[in-house]
């Protein structure tokens, strides 16, 4: 049997690795499978085909794994798609490690295809697409090399280099063509079954939680992933937004956990929380997959929320929203990402009495947990020293907390009474502790207050603002009679926003920007986008409002349409010329490349040669002249002619051998020539 080409096997294994990577980027494959495949890949790349001799044993092992996966599947511990993908990966690993015959090659490629399909079911984001393209390129090269290898007779060298260059060009052309196809042809939404993870960096980080439970470490503060992007009108134009993005409020605290008395209410397209004022801040918000929850977020204080659209891999559709307790508005459709609109009152607007509150909620504003530590109330009284005005009291308490308490994210263990633990034992905590403490301290003094959660801040990006998971925050709403709820934040100001490393944040911002562009211009790029792009190109420019009305609007497309058409025509023309030239050029043959090397050697040695004199002619001429080089050149020329025109290819290493002989002859010739002038120069030198 012929020894298979090593390069082809490496390409095949790398293609399988890329296909496996297409599944692995979803982050849903079990770790043992990942480990097993990586191990097999390393072994295969090293050329250690371990199971070549134990094919049956390994097949039995695969059977055991299949049974194990089946058990996991029936017990509900594993998803069917994930199990199938894992098994495909293991089969590919086994095939990679077995004897590299034609059947194993075909099966490896087939399982790679299956893995790619599995990857499409698991995730469809940018990293998947990269893996897919890598797989396509590597597998094409490997398969094409296989065809060439089969066509070359036994014992002949495979012209890898001669094949690889046109092959690579062809593959590059195919990829470019695929991209062009992608951009130009009408798009269909792809509906994939299977458990899709959130796109991007894997599972969502739940930057926003459904309940607030005190205790535990606040790891969320270090998470730099972007959860929300918003465009504000009017645009405040600030680099860093000093604003609270509220998601919901809580009114009931049981000593450990915050919750609401009122549950789900009506479902509508749009929910009005507060009557609008004259000046509203309009927000167009995009919730990214990293958000992971289904609560709408808006700047304080939200007036109206709605017009939501849910973006899922199966397409975009509008989502009605549902009002829940605590002023929370939720999407009714589950999707990785959403867009919606919100209107908020400006921070200085007077909202009147707290609107939209039902009586049960109103009653809860002063409720205290059953077993509240009596020291809490004493502390509040001591700090307030008789201050009864709600806002002033709240500010006094907040500054007391900011001054005397430290901010920390490290929270070891879960104390029985987190509040008194924070206030009297550790005297350190994070925003939830500060906000809960302030709310409860106020309530003990008969001042209505509730906990609000959401995000704080907003970094400028592309004319809008983005909020990170680490910006998740909790604060207090104080009920001020005649003014409604007023925000008071007990957390030290420097600790309100994201606490992640700046470097990581920047890196992530870059990734998120690329990823968002990928999602907008690739995954969610639809026929409508194509149509809009095309119509934007050819639509005549909008007439400025102050233009004279008697000027007839031009029906001609704008100059940019002509310019684009010219550019496209130019590109097409260049591409056509390139392609025609490429196909018109004969591929460089091994013998021709050998000839090039001979020519280069001869030129370096300054062998006299006429213009356009072929090696054949040169050898004939030198033979006529009785040149000493002929001895080396004649067999070489003969072999070249045989290889090029006689159909007897150069054997492996023969070219090197012939060239070495020629080199030696050239060196000897040079030495001979160097001696001759010296001998001639000798007597003349002596004579002078």
């Amino acid at each position: 049997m012929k020894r298979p080409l090593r390069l082809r096997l490496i390409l095949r294994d790398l293609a399988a690795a890329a296909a496996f990577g297409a599944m692995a980027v979803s982050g849903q494959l079990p770790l043992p499978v990942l480990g097993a495949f990586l191990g097999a890949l390393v072994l295969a790349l090293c050329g250690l085909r371990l199971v070549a001799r134990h094919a049956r044993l390994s097949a039995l092992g695969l059977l055991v794994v299949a049974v194990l996966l089946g058990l996991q599947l029936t017990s509900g511990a594993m998803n069917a798609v994930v199990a199938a993908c894992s098994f495909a990966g293991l089969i590919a690993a086994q095939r990679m490690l077995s004897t590299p015959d034609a059947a194993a090659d075909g099966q490896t490629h087939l399982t790679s295809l299956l893995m790619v399909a599995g990857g499409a079911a698991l995730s469809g984001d940018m990293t998947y697409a990269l893996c897919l393209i890598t797989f396509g390129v590597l597998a094409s090269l490997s398969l094409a090399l296989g065809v060439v290898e089969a066509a070359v007779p036994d014992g002949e060298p495979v012209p890898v280099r001669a094949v690889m260059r046109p092959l690579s060009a062809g593959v590059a052309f195919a990829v470019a063509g695929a991209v062009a196809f992608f951009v130009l042809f009408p798009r269909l939404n792809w509906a994939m079954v299977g458990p899709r993870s959130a796109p991007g960096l894997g599972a969502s980080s739940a930057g926003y939680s459904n309940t607030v439970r005190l205790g535990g470490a606040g790891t969320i503060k270090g998470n730099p992933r972007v959860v929300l992007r918003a465009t504000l009108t009017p645009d405040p134009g600030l680099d860093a937004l000093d604003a609270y993005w509220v998601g919901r409020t809580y009114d009931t605290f049981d000593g450990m956990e915050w919750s609401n008395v009122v549950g789900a209410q009506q479902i509508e397209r749009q929910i009005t929380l507060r009557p609008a004022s004259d000046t509203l801040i309009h927000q167009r918000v995009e919730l990214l997959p990293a958000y992971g929850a289904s609560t709408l977020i808006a700047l304080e204080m939200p007036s109206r929320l709605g017009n939501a659209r849910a973006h899922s891999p199966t397409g975009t559709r509008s989502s009605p929203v549902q009002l829940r307790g605590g002023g929370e508005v939720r999407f009714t459709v589950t999707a990785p990402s959403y867009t919606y609109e919100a209107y908020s009152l400006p921070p200085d607007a007077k909202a009147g009495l707290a609107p939209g509150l039902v009586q049960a909620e109103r009653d809860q504003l002063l409720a205290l947990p059953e077993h509240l530590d009596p020291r809490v109330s004493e502390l509040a009284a001591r700090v307030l020293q008789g201050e009864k005005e709600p806002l002033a009291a709240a500010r006094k308490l907040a500054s007391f907390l900011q001054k005397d308490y430290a901010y920390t994210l490290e929270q070891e263990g879960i104390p029985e009474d987190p509040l008194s633990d924070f206030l009297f034992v550790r005297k350190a905590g994070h925003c939830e502790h500060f906000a809960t403490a302030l709310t409860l301290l106020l309530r003990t003094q008969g001042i209505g207050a509730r906990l609000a959660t959401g995000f704080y801040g907003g970094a400028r990006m592309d004319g809008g603002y983005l909020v990170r998971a680490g910006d998740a925050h909790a604060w207090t709403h104080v009920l001020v009679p005649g003014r409604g709820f007023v925000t008071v934040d007990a957390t030290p100001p420097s600790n309100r926003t994201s606490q992640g490393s700046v470097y990581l944040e920047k890196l992530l911002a870059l990734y998120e920007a690329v990823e968002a562009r990928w999602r907008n211009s690739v995954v969610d790029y639809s026929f409508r986008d194509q149509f809009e792009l095309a119509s934007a190109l050819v639509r005549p420019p909008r007439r400025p409002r102050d233009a004279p009305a008697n000027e007839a609007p031009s029906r001609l497309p704008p100059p940019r349409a002509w310019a684009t058409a010219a550019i496209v025509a130019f590109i097409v023309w260049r591409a056509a010329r390139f392609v025609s030239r490429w196909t018109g050029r004969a591929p460089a043959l091994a013998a021709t490349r050998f000839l090039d090397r001979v020519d280069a050697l001869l030129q370096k040695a300054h062998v006299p040669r006429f213009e356009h004199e072929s090696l054949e002619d040169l050898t004939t001429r030198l033979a006529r002249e009785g040149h000493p080089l002929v001895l080396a050149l004649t067999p070489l020329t003969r072999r070249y002619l045989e290889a090029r025109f006689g159909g007897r290819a150069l054997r492996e290493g023969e070219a090197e051998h012939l060239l070495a002989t020629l080199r030696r002859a050239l060196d000897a010739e040079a030495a001979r020539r160097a001696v001759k002038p010296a001998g001639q120069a000798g007597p003349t030198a002596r004579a002078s």
Partner: protein
Amino acid sequence: MERLAAQLGRAVQGKPEEVRRVVTCVVAGGHLLLEDMPGVGKTTLAEALARACALSFSRIQFTADLLPADILGAQVFHAQTATFSFRPGPLFRQLVLADELNRAPPRTQSALLEGMAQGQVSLDGQTHPLPSPFTVVATQNPVDFSGTYPLPDSQLDRFLVRLSLGHPAPDVEARLLTTRGAASPLPSVEAVTGPEELASLRDFAQDVKLDAAVADYVVRLARATREHGDLERGASTRAVLALGSAARAQALWEGRDFVTPGDVRSMLVPCWAHRVLLRSAVQGVSARDEAAHLVDEIARKVAAPR
């Protein structure tokens, strides 16, 4: 082939290159046109060729009053049997020397040319096959044009190779004077091969491999002659085929079983120079040299495959 050339070399001394061409042409199965002034050994060469190959030989001296029947043969009436029978003319030989071909009228010329092209003779509705191998060596005098009928281009096309011997080098001429005197060199030529061997040589030549790149080279050369501004008419398809078989024979001469671009180049001028028609109206020697020069120039411009 080497032996054949050695024998021819005995007869025509000092012309190894031309002798090689002659042998190549014969091995390629083509007809030969020798075009030169009188007295340089054209006839001797042809006769030596016939001797060396042990071919049946006839020499036809073309004159202005030569009729087709004089070369083809005629139906002869037998009085005893009262039937006509065909008496073959001098053309029915394996090697025919057509001396001073351009002196015969076109009718006679074309009678010869039909035989050259078809390998058979049609006479009175009957076809008579010519012997095999059948080779014509024609000679022409390019200097003296008075009373000649120049061969039309279509007929020149039938000759595979046109050669001119030229005067021998002075030393060779001097040696001829001293050693030979007036004695004919022909008796010294020995038969080294027979018709059968020649036929098998021709088969070998036909089996010589012609690579696609070389074929492309030949075609490109042909196209270059067709597109050249100074040429009224370029190489025909027959010329392309002729060059191919000449190059094959040349490769066989070199002891190879495949054709190289060098083979094509070396057979290019003898094969094609007489087949292209110049735009200028010069005739005779200068036209011949001009055409050879032009074809050579074209070959320089067309890149050989590497």
